[in-house]
């Protein structure tokens, strides 16, 4: 289906609405517009960074790609297979190819399972190995994420945050996937530990030819790890381009504000740069603003922004944005 053979994941106008029910008879009174029509593709071996504030739908996008939620509409292609149309049993088999690393290393590991059981569970679930073989595979996986294989009979609480995140990575790698959704894998970690995990993810990507969707709200880390970066706001993409281009030449006012809000560890530079401080909070996704969704906080919003939804277009080659003012 795809013309470009390098494309691993193709997302086509993906929409994910969550219904809101109220009252005794659980009548549907509205929908949360979590993801409202996003289209993009991820190439083989690439890292696509996805940034935005909490509640903008970036995690939902990741989860919907993996069919953890049944999308309201739209299609997701993995190589040539449309995941949305797959029957549950076929989809289950596809899951070996795509895995996920979660944000909170404290909540995403079962405290009653040993590391061996956690990392070995996917192997058992797919009948990839049994008995002694599992032990061997778990040991080599722990070795891969630079944990001591002798720790495999320990429980998650015996590890620090960074080590737990490594266990999460080992579990995601157990079935040799080609695509991994990293949902804020470093947000809960200390600065020096973040660097350890990011370096590990980069090494693994090279070694195993992995493709990542890297979700984060930390723009500086996203720039570091990604090839291309997409910026999301209230359920839609506002900008998508190659990483250096995004930081050198941000087109959308939201991207500009996000970039200027990054705290930089350089007091002299901070004095010089112009900071755009956005007013207020992200509006509710139940009732998103008409026209351009960013207009309520946009410093350059105009009447047209309230009337017409800006079109998602390729402003420069490979540089997509949705704004009337560009």
């Amino acid at each position, binding site marked *: 289906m795809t013309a470009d053979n390098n494309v691993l994941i193709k997302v086509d106008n993906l929409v994910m609405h969550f219904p809101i029910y109220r009252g005794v008879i659980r009548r549907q009174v509205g929908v949360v517009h979590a993801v409202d029509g996003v289209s993009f593709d991820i190439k083989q071996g690439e890292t696509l960074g996805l940034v935005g*504030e*909490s509640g903008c739908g970036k995690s939902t996008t990741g989860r919907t790609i993996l069919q953890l939620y049944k999308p309201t509409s739209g299609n997701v292609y993995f190589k040539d297979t449309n995941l949305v149309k797959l029957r549950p049993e076929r989809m289950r088999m596809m899951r070996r190819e795509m895995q996920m690393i979660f944000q909170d290393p404290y909540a995403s590991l079962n405290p009653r399972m040993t590391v061996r059981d956690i990392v070995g569970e996917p192997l058992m679930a797919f009948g990839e190995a049994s008995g002694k073989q599992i032990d061997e595979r778990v040991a080599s996986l722990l070795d891969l994420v630079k944990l001591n294989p002798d720790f495999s009979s320990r429980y998650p609480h015996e590890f*620090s945050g*960074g080590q737990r995140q490594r266990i999460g990575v080992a579990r995601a790698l157990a079935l040799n996937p080609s695509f991994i959704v990293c949902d804020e894998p470093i947000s809960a970690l*200390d*600065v*020096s*530990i*973040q*660097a*350890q995990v*990011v*370096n590990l993810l*980069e090494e693994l990507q090279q070694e195993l030819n992995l493709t990542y969707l890297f979700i984060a*709200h*930390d*723009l*500086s*880390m996203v*720039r*570091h790890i990604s090839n291309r970066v997409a910026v999301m706001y209230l359920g839609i993409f506002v900008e998508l381009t190659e990483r*250096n281009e995004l*930081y*050198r030449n941000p087109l959308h006012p939201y991207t500009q*504000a*996000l*970039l*200027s*809000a*990054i*705290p*930089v*560890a*350089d*007091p*002299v*530079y*901070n004095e010089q740069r112009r*900071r755009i*401080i*956005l*007013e207020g*909070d992200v509006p509710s996704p139940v009732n998103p603003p008409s026209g351009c969704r960013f207009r309520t906080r946009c410093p350059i919003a105009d009447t047209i922004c309230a009337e017409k939804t800006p079109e998602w277009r390729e402003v420069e080659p490979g540089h997509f944005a949705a704004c009337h003012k560009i």
Partner: protein
Amino acid sequence: MGELLLNVRDLETHFKTPDGTVHAVNGVSFHIKEGETLGVVGESGCGKSVTMLSCLRLIPSPPGKIVAGEAIFRGQDLLKMSAEEIRHVRGGQISMVFQDPMTSLNPVMNIGKQMAEPLMLHMNMTKEQARKRSVELLELVGIPKAGERLKDYPHQYSGGMRQRVMIAIALSCNPQILIADEPTTALDVTIQAQIVDLVKRLRDELGMAIIWITHDLGVVANIAHRVMVMYGGYIIEESDVNDLYSDPRHPYTLGLLGSLPKIHEEMHRKLFSIEGMPPILYQKPRSCPFAPRCNWVTERCWQENPPLETVTEGHRVACWVDTRNGSK
């Protein structure tokens, strides 16, 4: 900067645990002057919060115990005050903003009540006066329609708004020192920028001193005048903010700065990471607590813990090695 406000000398705090006594703060000395902002930086578990909580005697005891030191605030030792006296200082002259705005407000009490509490307690205001002042304060921190929102409960506020309310409460009694314990860590970058901007504005308007605890070297660069870096319950480097970023000396500070990706740097470089994790000290260390993770480690580091020594004016470092040229 103005006069000396708080002077802490040789503070030591221990925690009794089933595994032994944890030495969380090991002889920390620092001071803060009027109108100054002091940044306190370090990883989780390096003793930065415990140091500040100790000064206000907010350490749960047992298991925690302040075993030595003094904290002189306007001629009086906070550590020797009676429980009654310290209660007047807390929330009044020295107030605190905590990390998590989701858990540090009472969910079953409306915002108006929570704001009035310190005002009626410390400032002897009547209910009506407290209400008026609360509205003023909420407006000061930029909450729209403040008067109507007093009846709302915390869950009706967003994360950034809740942190604003926390700051309003902390400011309500005109404190001389505001201790902010990772106030922006739980927030999004755009909201974080709003809060940092707000605190800076309030500092300039109201002239209070701020102690800003964080692990984010970026935020500190933006707000602090002076920074101290903590590790293993020690201050390992302390300096003027510009000096610290242009001329960092301690290997730990270098490591922290190196592990940040640079935003105005196009080359893709491997991030520097400090392997291992911060120690839990079950006894006062005889070696440098950072030695096991240090790239510059020498024989001497294992035998003696380096004292905090002045290297240039106002810049103190605790390290045996001169990291600029590797000499000892």
